């Protein structure tokens, strides 16, 4: 289960890339497509998450939703 603290930290990272993201609107079900992320935005965000959470996200990770990212952060943080 993704905890809300991780989600809040993630929202902060994402809002740095997308100015129009309303605070509190990011959910695990949010898709990166709906955030208008292209493949390089996703790479930028993966790198930002690696810095923020001290985890390593595999280069070929297929991320469709915020939950996909939370799973990877939780898995490697353990």
């Amino acid at each position: 289960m993704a905890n809300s603290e991780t989600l809040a930290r993630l929202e902060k990272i994402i809002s740095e890339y997308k100015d129009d993201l309303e605070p509190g609107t990011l959910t695990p079900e949010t898709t990166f497509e709906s955030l208008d992320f292209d493949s390089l935005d996703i790479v930028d965000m993966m790198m930002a998450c690696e810095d923020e959470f001290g985890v390593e996200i595999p280069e070929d990770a297929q991320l469709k939703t915020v939950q996909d990212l939370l799973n990877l952060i939780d898995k490697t943080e353990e």
Partner: protein
Amino acid sequence: MSFTILGTGSALPAKTVTNDDMAKLVETSDEWIRTRTGIRERHVITDESVTEITFTAAQRALEMSGVSPQELDYIICPTVGGDWISPSLACMIQERLGATCPAVDVNAACSGFLYGLDYADGIFARKRAKYVLVAAAEGLSRLLNWKDRSTCVLFGDGAGAAVLGEGDSLRYLHLTAKGSLALHVPHAPGESPFETNEQPPHGLVMDGREIYRFAVSTITAELRRASEETGIPFEKVDHVLLHQANQRIMDAASKKLHLPPEKVPSSIARTANTSAASVPILLDQEARLGHLHRGDILMLCAFGAGLTSGTAVLEWTRD
């Protein structure tokens, strides 16, 4: 004693190929290329030679510096390959210029100009030279796989040169290398009746995702290191000239370092990635636009195949 930059010059082949032109060759679009890379067009060699464009860039740099070819003590050409495997591009330039000094090529791919500056720094430190020409050039259009849309849209041809004279403008220079085939160009197949090794297909091969991450993290780490080692905070840096590989790489690194876009000039829209030539082409663009002033602090950072990187901090000493 190290060096100062006395003059710069650059040259691009005459033919421009727009993104729409590229869409006639491979399945791509102006929209994809522009939004993923910032590239709008690239210059490619038709009937020019790499030697010719390098010669033109070198002549322009010599003209700006007021140094004559006969006064040069060394010619260094950063390139992955001139017109010949041998002789070197540098020897061809020496001949065209009518210079008489030693001449050698340096291959560090896109980081070549910074590697060239490091060699030059050593030559000045040994007091072997008053003037050194570093003329970087690339004819990458010859080395691409023109059927691979994920790479052929990214590169262009060009040359950029700097004439260096004795001085103390160089504050910092740091090179890295980490052997990897993540970005590579195979050799042209030979005709030896004995060789049994499998010959790779023609053309540049790249793991775009890995190179993207390498680029962003290298720029970020190397510029931070440069700032720490020189004691010059980013607020005191006037211009950050990055290797022109992808606008998105520059934007992502600038964001991490909180560098305002006006400090990070770009030429990628019209040149695409010209490998070793990219930093000196950008430097020449900025110099000729009058953006560089005496006393300005410049940070240069390039990265590329190898994997290599090079980072320099220097003071601009021209008016």
